[in-house]
């Protein structure tokens, strides 16, 4: 631990009032109070810090490890710290992917009594990566496009709940792997506003800012030599706008059908499910002549596959990871081994419902894989991503060997040949690589 005096010690020696650490949502209140709040964040001693600051920020950000969490501490004005703390809390309650606010700090003073800015404390999102890190380590094709698509989904979800972001960018977002795509999380909400419903102008403004900022994000990556100079940075911003508009239209547009075309409502619901959304409420209006129907989605809920997987198995996973697991569950139900396994316990596979099949899949497929991962490799990837990578690895291996690979054999190869060679992603800030 550092030899810098704690605020309590400094307060005693110089009679400086201790800062106010408020709305603490962590058990580590006393450890938070021990941090050197009387120093500007830029002067916090290196040995206290868990990593280096993010690339682009208006504010100084420091990471510290307290208890079993890494906390991100952002220096900002008192009023702004409270405001962003509140906004992040509301977004979390609305089930929007965001970093979790832990506390905010006001009334900071230096040892000589000068006022210092306040601070916002958020929990570091395990297994998340800033976009710069993904470009520096992930050589997969079209990484940029997949990040932009994830940001478009996030923006549509934010707009559905009435959140105007005001500073949409890759820099203000963190990404978690989600099967062969990414899931995006809001990490900086200080310019945001919550409304009952957004106007078209507010949505247009967010897109305008996004288009400019994403071009800037990509140009900066090019200037840093992290992406191919042949990539068109302006196309990335345009891709976000197109991806967002397509999704927004599908989520919100009013359709007119003939009364004889009720099947088209099912088609609409299926399209929304494919995009990862559920229809919570639908308004159907018949015109005065009773000839046509106006169909308008009123409540659209994200995470269609995640929620279905959670209901069937209790596993929490990102949307595309859940889609992979549900597909694997379907394959498992139709495989001859499932019928044999059911027979062994005196059950008829044809009569086993989806819930029972899911229970068996959990015990015979999912848990054996996750439990086989040695402790020292559990920091490589999230369990949901481990499952996805395992399925992909087994598929490639089976194709190469022209035979089905038994589960336990496939798990052994996966761990030794693949997982052990990946970098740790659970606590990226620990690796001090950005």
């Amino acid at each position, binding site marked *: 631990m550092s030899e810098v005096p704690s605020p309590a010690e400094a307060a005693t020696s110089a009679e400086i009032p201790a800062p106010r650490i408020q709305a603490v949502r962590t058990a580590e209140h006393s450890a938070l109070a021990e941090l050197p709040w009387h120093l500007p964040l830029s002067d916090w001693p290196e040995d206290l810090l868990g990593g280096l600051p993010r*690339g*682009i*920020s*208006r504010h100084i950000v420091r990471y510290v490890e307290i208890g079993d969490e890494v906390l991100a501490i952002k220096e*900002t*004005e008192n*009023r*702004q710290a409270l405001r962003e703390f509140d906004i992040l809390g509301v977004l979390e309650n609305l089930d929007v992917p965001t970093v979790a606010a832990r506390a905010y700090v006001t009334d900071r003073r230096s040892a000589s009594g000068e*006022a210092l*800015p306040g601070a916002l404390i958020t929990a570091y999102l395990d297994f998340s990566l800033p976009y710069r890190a993904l470009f520096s380590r992930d050589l997969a094709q079209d990484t940029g496009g997949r990040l932009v698509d994830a940001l478009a989904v996030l923006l549509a979800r934010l707009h559905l709940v009435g959140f*105007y972001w005001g*500073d949409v*960018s890759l*820099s203000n977002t963190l990404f978690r792997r989600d099967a062969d795509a990414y899931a995006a999380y809001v990490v900086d909400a200080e*310019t945001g506003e919550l409304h*009952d*419903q957004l*106007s*078209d*102008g*507010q949505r*247009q*403004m967010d897109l*305008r*800012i996004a*288009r*400019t*900022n994403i*071009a*800037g*994000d990509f*140009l*900066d*990556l090019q*200037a*840093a030599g992290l992406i191919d100079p042949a990539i068109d940075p*302006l196309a990335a*911003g345009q891709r976000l706008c197109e991806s967002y508009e397509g999704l927004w239209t599908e989520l919100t547009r009013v359709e007119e059908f003939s009364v004889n075309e009720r099947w088209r409502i099912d088609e609409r619901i299926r399209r929304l499910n494919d995009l990862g959304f559920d229809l919570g409420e639908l308004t159907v209006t018949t015109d005065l002549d009773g000839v046509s129907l106006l169909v308008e989605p009123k409540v659209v809920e994200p995470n269609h596959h995640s929620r279905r997987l959670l209901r069937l198995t209790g596993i929490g996973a990102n949307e595309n990871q859940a889609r992979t697991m549900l597909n694997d569950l379907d394959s498992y139900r139709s495989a001859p081994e499932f019928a044999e396994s059911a027979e062994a316990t005196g059950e008829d596979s044809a009569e086993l419902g989806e819930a029972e099949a899911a229970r068996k899949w959990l015990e015979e497929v999912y848990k054996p894989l996750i439990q086989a991962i040695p402790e020292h490799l559990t920091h490589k990837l999230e369990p949901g991503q481990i499952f996805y990578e395992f399925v992909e690895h087994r598929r490639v291996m089976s194709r190469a060997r022209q035979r089905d690979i038994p589960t336990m054999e496939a798990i052994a190869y996966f761990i030794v040949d693949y997982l052990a060679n990946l970098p740790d992603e659970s606590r990226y800030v620990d690796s001090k690589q950005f």
Partner: protein
Amino acid sequence: MTEHPRQVADDQLLMNYMNYLGGNMSTVSLNGLSHAYENTASDSVHPFNLFIDDGEFLVLYGPSGSGKSTILRMLHGLEAPKSGTILIDGVDVTHAAVNDRDVTLALESYALYPHMSVRDNLGFALRVDGLPAEEIAERVESVTSKIGLRDFLDSVPGDLSQLQRQTIALARAVVRRPKVLIMDEPVVNLVPEHKAETLALVKDLQQEFALTTLYATSDLEDAKVLGDRIAFLDHGRLVGVEKPEVAEALVASIADGES
């Protein structure tokens, strides 16, 4: 009154000359403008008329909830008016999309990119807007000359002082040469020494480029320092528009009226 043909010709000539110099002739007319939030009984902004002249710095002053930010948001296109019209240079933009009204919010894009030069940090948004490379270069050099940072065109933000970085962030709005620049309490969260520097910078940039500017604040001292005129707002009503010299008297009369 009918304008003399010669007068019209002179005005056109002057406008052409200003455009040649890089200035923007821009007026703003807010006519009978009002606003109400959905599901609320009363107007958040009651109908008012306001004309902002070309190159004028107009401050919207009032406490939180007085309607000043809502007026800026209607001008910007983020909120739809309940009634009235918004004219920019005589063109009705009341229902125009955000991108079709040539209004820029200062500090719309906050971050300076660490690996990009000052030149690229200032010019990249113009690339996004589709301007040709020669025009981007001309605008960037012109702006940096006027703000005294031409020698830093090839520097990266890390080589600049905090004030220089702030200047570049503000100059990003100016380099777009918008018809109207708007600012919504941009200094409210700054510590006092940075606030004073930023206010001076805002005033310098506005005067240097003669930008038609609307600036919202709840700080009367800031309003007096910045504004050519100050529009006083109280509970969603425009209660007066005055020169800064008589601001204190008007504030006192508003307070008397409420007591």
